[in-house]
Every structure is written in structure tokens, then in C-alpha cells.
């Protein structure tokens, strides 16, 4: 079976992608309106919704980038994981009920729609849509590029295929993603998320067990090896500065409730009390799928340090190398499918909210009304956004990785004050939200483009979140809120 490892992996990947296509076709029959396309007509069961929540959060970055970060910087990235249970809990406490109630009252089909209804401000709705679009393009580009690299790594090992150009891999992998997103919209997205989430959990558990078994002495053996080489690497901060780790914790714990591809799922559930069952499932799913991040990362670093594996030229090779060299071929097949699942489960959410921003939110903010044949334009926009993101990913060089990094923080800094806090706080004003979003974009992209390094490696995205929350809070206190519509006010009181 070892002889056929590459072919087995390829079979699993083909099987997985075929399933995605099948789900896309199934969902297409259930997608007849933009309400179906963007909000699944608010008919999601709690299990589908909760798996969609955590699988959207655990992107390819978590399955590829995460182990790479542990390989590169030891325990530093554990603070990102550490923040997520707090982050998911915050999202539910602040928004799960609130957004679902508002969804029932005003029937928004996107987050900017809900923002416009709350603040009675088209400019704010427009700005929120722009922030979402900017975050989506950067984040989506990295996901698409990651997908292409994973596929390239798989195909190069198959004797009868060999090295396939990155552009071709990108086209192949994106084609599947775009197909099910165009045909089935958010319905296809969440049902593939369900399937993808389950694969991710199973894959992570099996890989974690394999990583423990691979290294002599298991987790303790890895820790002792790393301690002997560099005590700081296995200390609580890893090789990065303590302040960097703590700023990541801040950004991820508070910023999760500003991730639009996650919180829009709260508006899609069948019942308003589904949140009670969703939260523990989402938390458990994320915690289990994070085991892959910890297991592979520590194992690969320890293997290289003790001389059991050649050093990696690129930290992101940690996960693929581990799967190619140490995992059973069948497990490798499952995990590579899990890898693609992790990437696609996030990318499909981005495509959907990006299409909503382009086709629904921005036209409504400018013209005051929706486009005709909105469903047709939503599908068209999905293809265009994917194409733009893919081209950007292929030709922008280092910029795509940087934009991907600021994607999370762009969403966080723009949406946390406006939505997570503002939807619960009647004192919040449209002016404060507009200024918060603008300050978030200026600070975030300013730090990125000017290559500013904050003292002690304090994360730039975390800094922009701090600035935007501060601006939002104090400007709200100093400005007069508009009268909230009675039904919105009642929704905020529930």
C-alpha cells in the first residue's frame, strides 16, 4: 500500500471533490432566490450551522499554516488556539440570539443589510460592505493559493502526472469551489461545511494520535527534545515575544465575533434557541480540529531538531511532509481531503459574503434598491470574485500572504464595534461606526503597506482593533444616536 501512497491520496481527493460537486448540484435545486442563495432561507438545523461555524473559522491557515507556525516558532502560535474558545463563546454570547432575532424581524440577507437596518445609515452599510470586500479579497486569495499548492504537492508525487504548473492546479481546485458556490450558494456552502467539518475532526484526531506515536516518548519526548535544544521554544511564548503572543490572543478572542463568514450563520438557523445547542458543538469541533495544529507542528520541529528529518525549506511544508512521510497512506488520503476541506469551508463562506457585498449591499447603499435578477448577478459575482482573487493570488507575489494576514484583523476591527457591540448597545451611533471602520482600515493597511513594526512585535491587526474599539466607544459617547426604529429597538431588547 505504501507503493501506492500518492495514488491513494489522489483518489481520496478526487472522491472528496466529487462529493462537493454532488452537494452543489443538490443545493442548486433548493436555491431559487437570493434569500436561498445568501441566507439558506433561514432553515439550517443546529448541527449544520454549528459545524459550519467552526469549520469556517478553522481555515486552511489552521491546517497548513498552523503546523508551520509551530515548526517555525514553537509554542507561540498556541496563543492563537488558546483564544478561540473565548472567541467563539464571545460571538455566541453577544450575537447568536441578537442576529437571529433581527433576522426574523427585518429579513436581512447580509450583514451590511442588518447594519443598515440597525443604524438607519446607508453610508455605514456601504462602508461595512467595502470593509468586507477588502477582507474577502485578501483572505480568499490566500485560501485559493493554499488550495493550489496542496493540489500541486499531491499531483507531483503521482508518477503518471508529475509536476503540474501552479496556475493549472489553481484553476482545477478553484473550479470545484466555484461550481458548488455558484450552483448552490450558501446552502451548498454550509452542507459542504458539514461534511468538511466532520472530515477535519476525524483527520485531526487520527493525525494527533499518529504524531504522538511517531515520536519516541510521545508528546513528552517531543517537549524534552525541544527543551534541550531551546527552552524558550517550548515555553509558553515560544520564540516570539510575549507581547506578540498576547496581542494575538486579544485579536483572536475579541476579533472572532467580527468575522462575517462566521456570524452571518447565526442569521440562518431555523430557530432562535438553536444557539444553545450550537455553542458547545462549535467549541468542541474547533478544539478537536486544532489538535492537528499542535501535533504535527511539535512533531516536525522535534524530528528536525533530533536529526530524524531533514530541515524544511519552508515552514508550511510541515503538514504535507508529515503526511507524506509518517502517516499511513489511507490516513494521508483522509487528511489531505481534510486539508482541502479546511480551505474550502472558509473560502466558500467568503465567496458568498463577497458576492452579497458586490451585488446586494453596495448597489442598495448607492441606489437605495436591489438589482433586478439579483440571483443571476449573485452567481456572476461569485465567479468574478473568485477569478479576481485567484489572479491576485497568482501574480501579486508576497502581497497575497500579507493581505491574507490582515484579512482577519480587517474584519475584526471593522465589524466588532459596529455589530458585536453596536447591536447590543443603543448608545452606539452611525458616526462612531463609520469612524471606527475608517480608522480600522487606515491603521491596518497603513501598518501593512508602510511595513511598520510595532514595539515588542505587538500585532498590527490587534493594534487596529484596539484603535477602532476606542474610537467607536468614545465617539458614541460624544455623539447623539439617531432614533432606532421601534421594531429594531424591540429586537435589541429581547
Amino acid at each position: 500500500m505504501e507503493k501506492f501512497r500518492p495514488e491513494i491520496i489522489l483518489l481520496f481527493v478526487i472522491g472528496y471533490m466529487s462529493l462537493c460537486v454532488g452537494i452543489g448540484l443538490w443545493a442548486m435545486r433548493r436555491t431559487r432566490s437570493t434569500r436561498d442563495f445568501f441566507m439558506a432561507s433561514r432553515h439550517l438545523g443546529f448541527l449544520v450551522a454549528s459545524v459550519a461555524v467552526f469549520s469556517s473559522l478553522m481555515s486552511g491557515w489552521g491546517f497548513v499554516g498552523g503546523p508551520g507556525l509551530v515548526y517555525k516558532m514553537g509554542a507561540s502560535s498556541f496563543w492563537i488556539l488558546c483564544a478561540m474558545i473565548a472567541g467563539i463563546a464571545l460571538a455566541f454570547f453577544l450575537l447568536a440570539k441578537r442576529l437571529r432575532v433581527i433576522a426574523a424581524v427585518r429579513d436581512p440577507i447580509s450583514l451590511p443589510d442588518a447594519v443598515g437596518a440597525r443604524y438607519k445609515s446607508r453610508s455605514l452599510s456601504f462602508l461595512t460592505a467595502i470593509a468586507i470586500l477588502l477582507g474577502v479579497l485578501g483572505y480568499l486569495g490566500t485560501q485559493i493559493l493554499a488550495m493550489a499548492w496542496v493540489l500541486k504537492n499531491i499531483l507531483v508525487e503521482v508518477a503518471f502526472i508529475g509536476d503540474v504548473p501552479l496556475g493549472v492546479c489553481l484553476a482545477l481546485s478553484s473550479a470545484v469551489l466555484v461550481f458548488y458556490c455558484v450552483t448552490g450558494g450558501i446552502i451548498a456552502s454550509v452542507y459542504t461545511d458539514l461534511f468538511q467539518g466532520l472530515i477535519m475532526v476525524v483527520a485531526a484526531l487520527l493525525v494527533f494520535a499518529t504524531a504522538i506515536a511517531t515520536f519516541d516518548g510521545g508528546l513528552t519526548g517531543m517537549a524534552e527534545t525541544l527543551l534541550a535544544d531551546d527552552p524558550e521554544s517550548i515555553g509558553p511564548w515560544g520564540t516570539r515575544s510575549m507581547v506578540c503572543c498576547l496581542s494575538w490572543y486579544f485579536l483572536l478572542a475579541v476579533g472572532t465575533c467580527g468575522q462575517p463568514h462566521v456570524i452571518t450563520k447565526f442569521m440562518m438557523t431555523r430557530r432562535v434557541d438553536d444557539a444553545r445547542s450550537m455553542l458547545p458543538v462549535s467549541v468542541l469541533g474547533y478544539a478537536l480540529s486544532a489538535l492537528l495544529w499542535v501535533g504535527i507542528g511539535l512533531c516536525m520541529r522535534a524530528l528536525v531538531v533530533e536529526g530524524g528529518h531533514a530541515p524544511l525549506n519552508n515552514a508550511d511544508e510541515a503538514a504535507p511532509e508529515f503526511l507524506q512521510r509518517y502517516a499511513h497512506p489511507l490516513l494521508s488520503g483522509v487528511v489531505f481531503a481534510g486539508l482541502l476541506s479546511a480551505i474550502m469551508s472558509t473560502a466558500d463562506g467568503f465567496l458568498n459574503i463577497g458576492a452579497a457585498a458586490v451585488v446586494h449591499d453596495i448597489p442598495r447603499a448607492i441606489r437605495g434598491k436591489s438589482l433586478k435578477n439579483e440571483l443571476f448577478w449573485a452567481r456572476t459575482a461569485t465567479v468574478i470574485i473568485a477569478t479576481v482573487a485567484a489572479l491576485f493570488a497568482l501574480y501579486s507575489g508576497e502581497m497575497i500572504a500579507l493581505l491574507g494576514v490582515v484579512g482577519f484583523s480587517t474584519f475584526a476591527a471593522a465589524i466588532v464595534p459596529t455589530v458585536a457591540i453596536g447591536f447590543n448597545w443603543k448608545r452606539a451611533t452611525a458616526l462612531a461606526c463609520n469612524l471606527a471602520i475608517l480608522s480600522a482600515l487606515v491603521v491596518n493597511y497603513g501598518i501593512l503597506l508602510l511595513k511598520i513594526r510595532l514595539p515588542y512585535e505587538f500585532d498590527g491587526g490587534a493594534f487596529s482593533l484596539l484603535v477602532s474599539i476606542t474610537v467607536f466607544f468614545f465617539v458614541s459617547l460624544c455623539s447623539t444616536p439617531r432614533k432606532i426604529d421601534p421594531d429594531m429597538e424591540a429586537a435589541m431588547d429581547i
Partner: protein
Amino acid sequence: MRERLVQYGIPTFLIAAFWVVTLAIFLLPEPANVDGVAHPDYGKEREQSHEMARGGAGAERHGAILVHGWLMIALLASAIVYLLAWGASRGTQSSVATAGAGRERAKFIGLFLLGFLLFQVVLAAIFLSYRASLVDPPNTDFWGPLPTATSLVFVAWITPAFFVVLYVIFFNRWILSPRAVEKFNELVKMSRQSQQQEDT
């Protein structure tokens, strides 16, 4: 007065304090290699582009900012618990908010205070055990499979699960009480009626 303190005073204090600590950190002289160096064997300084970093001397990197770091995470944990409690008690139909809800409110505050204390103790323990490990880093104590301070990071990871449990157990009292459900159903009915009127 108490409500204004909770609604405005606490957030103002938390935001201001966070800024003070952050700026204090920014103003401290930064030691060399605070964010690690290339690993001498597997890092980028060698000809091959290997990618692994090394932390170096912990006491040198973090010794001077341990207290600042602890203050930062303590404030952050306080903000998180505050937001969780605020989110849980927001609804006017919540059993915590209604008149005569003294006992329920006391239970609510008590449980969130307990969660807050748990969180703070775990986070403080990370810093204390890290500080202890700086005495003899290569021979640091282990707790379970990892060094004590690192194991405690994973304890900090699951500590918020306490609030997840509260959410599930008290959902029908704090988050969405029967009265809130009634109000919600009324609101949906009114919304549908006004939508029908608009359509006709």
C-alpha cells in the same frame, strides 16, 4: 447610578487601562532579539533557506516586562468576562433583568465572578511558573507532557468552557427566557403583518 457605572465606567476603565499598559510596554527599551533569532542549525542564516527560529535567553527577553504582560492579559481577561456577562444579561426580558430578580441576579453575578477568578488565577499561574522556569530553563518542571507554564496555556485555552457551560445551562433563564420568546413571537407577528400591509 450603578447601571451607569457598569455600562460606562467599566468599559472606560478597561479601554483606558489597556492603552496605558500597551503604551508603557511600547516605551520600555526593547532587548535585542526579543522576537527570537534564526536557529543556528536550521534557521535562515545558513546557506539553505531553512526556516526555524529560536527564542534565546528568556530572562533577557521577558524579564523586564513580565508584570506588564501579566497586567495586559489580566485586563484582557476582565474585558472578555465583562463582555460575556453583558451579552448574557442584555435582554430586558432576561430573568436577571426583571424586577424582583434579586436571587437570580446574585447567582448570575456569583457565577460570572467565579469564572472571572478562575480565568485570572490560570493566567497568573502561567506568568508565575514561567518566571520560576527562568532560574534554570533547561531543567524546568513539567506538568503532564509539557513544561508547566506551557501546560497552563492549554488550561487557559479550556477555561472559557466554564462560560460555555453557563450558556447551555442557563440559556432559558438568562439569554432567552420564556418571556423573551413571547416577545419575540409577538415581534415576528407584527413584522409579518406590516410586511403584508406594505405588499398590499
